């Protein structure tokens, strides 16, 4: 084994450079001539461990993350070398022998930059993933266990790590706790905003779903797939056919509406004619949902498809960061939802949809073409679902074969919360669900946020069993 030991005096930059170059050359020679053989420690710009060398490296920063350049660090132990930090504060030693090493720098530098320590001990073991590469960070607060030690060691050897890392992570979690507390203020507005946006998207889907429920009494489990369909069709438009976004979106909505029309003609209308109950129809929607979902997967695969590749520039409105597509999507959602509500409450056809839902036979007896009304409702509902799929795909940065399915429960929750069959209810319910879900992650773990939205649903129903906008029926 060839061990080259270089002893370099402090503050002799020239010599250091020369020796570094020399070492480099040597190392090159050695590695060229006899690969696989170890070589002595040396300073290198960056170090990655291999079978033959380990790494001791780090970045020298002050407490404000400012790099400290041109500081000399000394490696001692099995092998020794000296390195100087570069403009980014980077330094690295490549070592060849396993064993303990100590990295030191001038005490005065440590004092000057308020670093916690000027020496650090590490253990290198080339064959071990844990120890082949050791990172020494003098900016790290001294571990509690090491304060009594000799000036405190930066990165403790991994033998000790088990204890010190534990105390460390405890400390980290406590700081995390307070950090989260401080963060809440920053997050409230942003979360509220995103909750509203999400609520609007959800509203667009739920209103459509509610329309079908309101007219035919059918809870459609395949509505989620109609949403996915919209998003995926927009993806086809932009990424496969390479159309601009707007024609693609229109294409998606048209396809969505078309599927609404077709499925009404070939599935729902015949089922209604056969007087099949809504429970049974619901099972058909489950079947349809399965069939559609996996058809999407068949054609589009299991991954998430981005409708737009680009991410538009974000800007701030007050405390909220957002971007143009999000705002446009929200505006479209509002316009469509308001339009549909007006349609339901102000137009003859809208009233007819409610009449059909109450009593289809009587509606027919009043001269309403029930089939026509239901057809329109299906087209409208699926068209809206497709639109929401497009907007959602843009807002959530992608759509996959099962995006809609995962949102189905929230749609149901929104619709129920607002009161089944009421148009305004679906919107208000969606907003509540959206806001509660997003805001609750301020308090409870993020992975439980949908649980809070659903809990709200249950609480509201306990107080108002008919939903927020539902009307109670009289008995007797």
């Amino acid at each position: 084994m060839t061990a080259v030991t270089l002893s370099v005096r402090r503050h002799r930059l020239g010599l250091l450079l020369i020796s570094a170059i020399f070492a480099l050359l040597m190392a090159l020679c050695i590695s060229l001539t006899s690969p696989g053989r170890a070589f002595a420690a040396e300073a290198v710009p960056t170090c990655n461990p291999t079978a033959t060398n380990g790494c001791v490296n780090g970045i020298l920063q002050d407490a404000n993350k400012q790099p400290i350049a041109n500081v000399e660090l000394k490696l001692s132990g099995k092998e020794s070398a000296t390195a100087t930090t570069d403009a980014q504060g980077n330094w690295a030693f490549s070592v060849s022998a396993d064993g303990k090493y100590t990295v030191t720098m001038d005490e005065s530098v440590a004092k000057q930059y308020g670093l916690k320590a000027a020496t650090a001990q590490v253990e290198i073991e080339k064959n071990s993933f844990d120890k082949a590469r050791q990172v020494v960070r003098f900016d790290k607060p001294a571990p509690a266990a090491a304060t009594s030690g000799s000036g405190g060691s930066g990165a403790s050897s991994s033998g000790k790590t088990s204890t010190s890392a534990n105390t460390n992570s405890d400390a980290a979690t406590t700081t995390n706790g307070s950090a989260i507390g401080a963060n809440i203020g920053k997050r409230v507005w942003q979360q509220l905003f995103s909750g509203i946006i999400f609520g609007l998207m959800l509203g667009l889907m739920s209103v459509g779903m509610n329309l079908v429920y309101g007219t035919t009494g059918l809870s459609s489990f395949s509505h989620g797939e109609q949403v996915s369909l919209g998003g995926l069709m927009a993806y086809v438009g932009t990424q496969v056919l390479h159309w601009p976004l707007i024609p693609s979106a229109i294409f998606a909505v048209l396809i969505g509406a078309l599927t609404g029309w077709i499925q009404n003609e070939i599935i729902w209308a015949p089922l209604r004619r056969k007087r099949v109950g809504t429970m049974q129809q619901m099972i058909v929607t489950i079947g349809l949902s399965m069939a559609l979902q996996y058809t999407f997967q068949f054609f589009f695969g299991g991954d998430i498809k981005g409708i737009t590749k680009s991410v538009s520039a974000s800007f701030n409105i007050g405390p909220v960061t957002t971007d143009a597509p999000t705002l446009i999507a929200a505006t479209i959602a509002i316009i469509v939802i308001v339009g549909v509500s007006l349609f339901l409450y102000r137009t003859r056809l809208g009233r007819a949809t409610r009449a059909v839902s109450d009593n289809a036979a009587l509606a027919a007896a009043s001269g309403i073409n029930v089939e026509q009304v239901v057809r329109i409702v299906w087209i409208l509902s699926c068209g809206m679902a497709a639109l929401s799929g497009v907007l959602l795909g843009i807002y959530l940065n992608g759509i996959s074969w099962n995006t809609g399915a995962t949102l189905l429960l929230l749609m149901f929750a929104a619709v129920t919360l607002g009161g089944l069959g009421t148009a305004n209810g679906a919107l208000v319910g969606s907003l509540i669900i959206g806001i509660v879900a997003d805001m609750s992650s301020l308090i409870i773990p993020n992975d439980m946020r949908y649980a809070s939205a659903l809990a709200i649903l249950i609480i509201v129903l306990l107080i108002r069993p008919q939903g927020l906008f539902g009307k109670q029926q009289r008995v007797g």
Partner: protein
Amino acid sequence: DSGASAKKTDTFVLGGLWPETGSLAYLAPPELAAEKLAVSDINAAGGVLGKDITTTDADTSDADHADQNSSATQSVMSKNPSFVIGPASSAVVKNVYKTITSANVPMLSMGATSSDFSGLSPYFFRTVPPDSVQGAVLGQVIAQDGVKNLAVAVFNDEYGTGLRDTIVKTVEGAGVNVVYGADSAFDPTETNFSSIVTAIKASNPDAIAIVAFDQTKSLVKELASQGVDTHKLYFVDGNTADYSKDLDAGLLEGAKGTIPGVMASDEFQKKLVKAYGKDISTFTYGAETYDGIILAALAAQKGGSADGATIQKNMAAVSGANGGTKCSTYKDCVAALKSGKEITYKGLTGIGPFNKNNDPSSANIGVYVFDDQNVPKFDHTQEGKVPTD
């Protein structure tokens, strides 16, 4: 030893459990290609015990389709396989391994990296090192890059939280503050990342480590749209993939990722594409799949029978636990075996012989850096011993 698999047999039936659907579906092509390639290489070299090997495959889908997990397993098991390759993800392995191992059929996962699986069962093998290794490497890379405040976004899954724990442990040991995600995780079925990103952003990290599968795309876009720096991201084997088709050029430039195993060589890549018959965008775990199958075939060849118990007994030996002639193709290895020698199969993955936990005793972790087209480019690899405790 009991059951049908104890009977000596010379027909080697290879069972395959693949993530053909679900959020890991993008990894199925390289694995299936590797299976085809391995089978054709083996059969070209005369098969196992003189007979061609046959395959039986099934799709396990995601772990949240547990029914499909088990029905796929059932379907493969019903063909009395000598050996099962797969499933890829830890969560699915957890769902199905018992059915397979209890029938004394050895199984080998090419991707399940959960640290908990070391020594899971004498019949469970893997050609990837556990996450304790990957996590350590990634953690050091993060620390080495001078990150002071790290956010970790992981999905709540066997693999996600396990890997997170080692990353967090490593980086904290190296002086990095974990400002977000040390003890939270998001739902694997999450589609709306806005509140997660808001929380991450509010915690002011210098860099973010992401442990997830396909969810990564939406998360990255959401990060970008909320104005978070996406050049300081750290990925893992579940998401270090080619994003050139999904993200704006340059969005990920400089981001890093780790993948256990070696980077597939160009030659191997070409072979895989040829065997698959279609273009493959990522080659993750192709080599691990290939080596796993070859090892099993060699084990059968060595033991002189293609039943599960025999294969299980000889897996460690052919991987080199007892030393012996080094050989790197099935053909050479079989020749060596036939001449009665102990062998050490040196495959594409460069892993060491199986240790007592049936983990590779040594392995590689590749570190990749994303280029301006959002394609991960191989940077360097770190090799080492896999700890056994």
